[in-house]
């Protein structure tokens, strides 16, 4: 049979707002060309017409399942530029909320991996357990997914009463769910058949292609912005960076589940040792930072977010460049899918955790 050109297009149950042009020969993919850009909304340009505080609802919306991750880097950048010093309690609260978001995003990832692999239970359980975390976030921040909670200088409101007990109970609940996930997903022989030795990314290739996040850590590279350039309270909290050596889809899945466990560890430590004090630094609501450029990195659930902010001393930024992890992982598509089976396409695609809105901005 001659080569078929398949359009795993924007209208497809398995692709999100993203197009993959796949050349198939029988059951083997000979070429896979990603075609992003269907959801480009000009976020970077729009950010130039909003003040620094007003940018926050804008910037958290491309990545709704992990909104705190992208805003974190922005807020760090603005603080460095404006010379704001964040109080300790605010640092701990920010770490707590960022880790809750990381868990939420990874559970969402697990659920959609279930859809891609045809495992309907793997779809339902993580979404249900994510509700526990979303409920927690709703009590603390007021919204379920896009919180507008981080601001340059700290956070917008303090933790409500009784939050610590509820959070510890939620962590206990999740800790009891992880062995269930292990027995029905991760150690499921059919899941191992589908993801072992599929989409192998060696360590050298991972570094050469410039991928970030769990994709990089699944290939054995120990790179995590929380350890390499610690920000806020991460240098005072103990946690490990999950790294696995094989570089296949299975390692990437294990990395993410291990990151859920490490996030639970961080959350428990933060809840035990959070200091009291103010939760927001005194700062004008219309910031006029000094002229200059600043670069800031933060580790979101999908990878490293980096912001490059140029300010001319006015109340709106002059240029805001966003480097999102999904866009950084795009070269891996073409590289990994060449020569694999057609049925491995969704396995590899989602193991890279590509989020079209975040890549297109």
């Amino acid at each position: 049979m001659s080569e078929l050109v398949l359009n795993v297009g924007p209208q497809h149950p398995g692709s999100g707002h993203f197009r993959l042009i796949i050349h198939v020969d029988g059951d083997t993919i000979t070429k896979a060309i990603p075609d992003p850009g269907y959801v480009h909304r000009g976020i970077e340009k729009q950010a130039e017409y909003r003040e620094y505080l007003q940018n926050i609802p804008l910037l958290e919306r491309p990545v709704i399942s992990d909104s705190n991750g992208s805003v974190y880097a922005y807020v760090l950048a603005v603080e460095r530029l404006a010379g704001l010093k964040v109080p300790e309690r605010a640092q701990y609260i920010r770490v707590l909320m960022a880790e809750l978001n990381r868990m939420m995003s990874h559970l969402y990832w697990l659920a959609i991996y279930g859809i891609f692999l045809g495992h309907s239970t793997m779809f339902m359980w993580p979404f249900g357990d994510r509700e526990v975390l979303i409920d927690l976030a709703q009590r603390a921040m007021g919204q379920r997914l896009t919180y507008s909670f981080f601001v340059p200088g700290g956070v917008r409101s303090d933790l409500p009463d009784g939050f610590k007990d509820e959070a510890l109970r939620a962590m206990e609940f999740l800790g009891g769910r992880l062995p269930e996930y292990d027995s029905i997903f991760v150690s499921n022989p059919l899941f191992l058949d589908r993801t072992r030795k599929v989409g192998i990314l060696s360590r050298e290739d991972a570094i050469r292609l410039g991928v970030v996040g769990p994709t990089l850590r699944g290939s054995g590279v120990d790179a995590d912005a929380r350890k390499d350039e610690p920000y806020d309270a991460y240098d005072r909290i103990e946690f490990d960076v999950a790294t696995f050596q094989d570089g296949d889809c299975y390692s990437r899945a294990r990395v993410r589940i291990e990151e859920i466990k490490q996030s639970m560890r961080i959350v428990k430590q933060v809840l035990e040792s959070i200091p009291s004090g103010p939760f927001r630094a005194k700062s004008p609501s219309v910031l006029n930072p000094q002229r200059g450029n600043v670069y800031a990195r933060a580790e979101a659930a999908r990878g490293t977010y980096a912001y490059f902010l140029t300010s001319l001393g006015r109340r709106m930024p002059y240029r805001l460049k966003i480097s999102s992890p999904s866009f950084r992982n795009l070269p891996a598509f073409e590289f990994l899918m060449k020569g694999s089976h057609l049925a491995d396409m969704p396995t590899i695609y989602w193991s890279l955790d590509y989020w079209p809105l975040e890549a297109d901005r």
Partner: protein
Amino acid sequence: MLGLTEPLSNLLQILVFPGLGFALTFVLFMVWYERKLLAKVQVRVGPLYAGRFEGILQPIADFVKLLFKEIIVPKQADRFLFMLAPTFMMALSVSILALIPLSPSNVIADSNVAILVIIAVLSLSPLAIVVAAWASNNKYSLIGGLRALHQTTSYAIPLSLSVLGVVLMSGSFSLMSIVESQRNAWFIMLQPLGAIVFFLAALAELERVPFDIPEAETEVVMGWETEYSGINYGIIMTAAYVKFYALAVLFTELFLGGWLGPEPVPPALWTIIKTFFVITLMMIPRGVYPRLRIDQMLRLGWTRLLPLSLVNIIISLVAVSFMA
């Protein structure tokens, strides 16, 4: 008068019990039961509002909804074959029902070679799928249809061979005598290998998880069913579930002793109870396993199930010659 009651009772058997009427009602119940069972495994509720009791009328609501939808035939599709394929599938599934007895007195067409005919008719299903896939004129349908063709053809062989062990033990192709010869011991204890092979091959023939690669949503939208909408899709789904029901009753009669059971319960009811149990077993993998890739599935069929069924035949031959 006497000349009229025979065909009349035959007609009643065909249309009501154990024929179409009962089968279609059971299929409706099966659809609801599957959704509820999966929902329970997934910590959610399943159908709830259609019908007073826990959404029991939900399959009927879905069927009525499908009746209301437009039947879209793609412009470049082969119209005749496109509309023929669902009917063909339905005919295949329903014609098996005529040969399967629910009890010695509840059978539409008893035959000495019932099993042979059933296997032969089941082996026609790849043809129906290919007709549907080709007539759709759609790349995804083509890929899905070819995968389904590979799958159903490969698994038809272990299906047929696993039945051979039972036939050897009971000495006849007729389903009546197969069930009668299980009076002392059910064949699932004498032929565990055959039962496992038949179970897995039946799951693959029905394109159920973990063998539902032909309709893998995330790669080939709906596989060979992609272009079917409205009642066309309803007929395909009904045909699949009727085949499910038929294969489950077949499993009961081949391995679980069919209608044999203690007296106060009528034999037909025993068949139904055991079929219910088999259906539950066949639905559970849907909540527990992801789907296999096509090459892994074909490898399973050819390198594991086929040798196992051959080994099963050899063991049965040896056992029968010992007992003779």
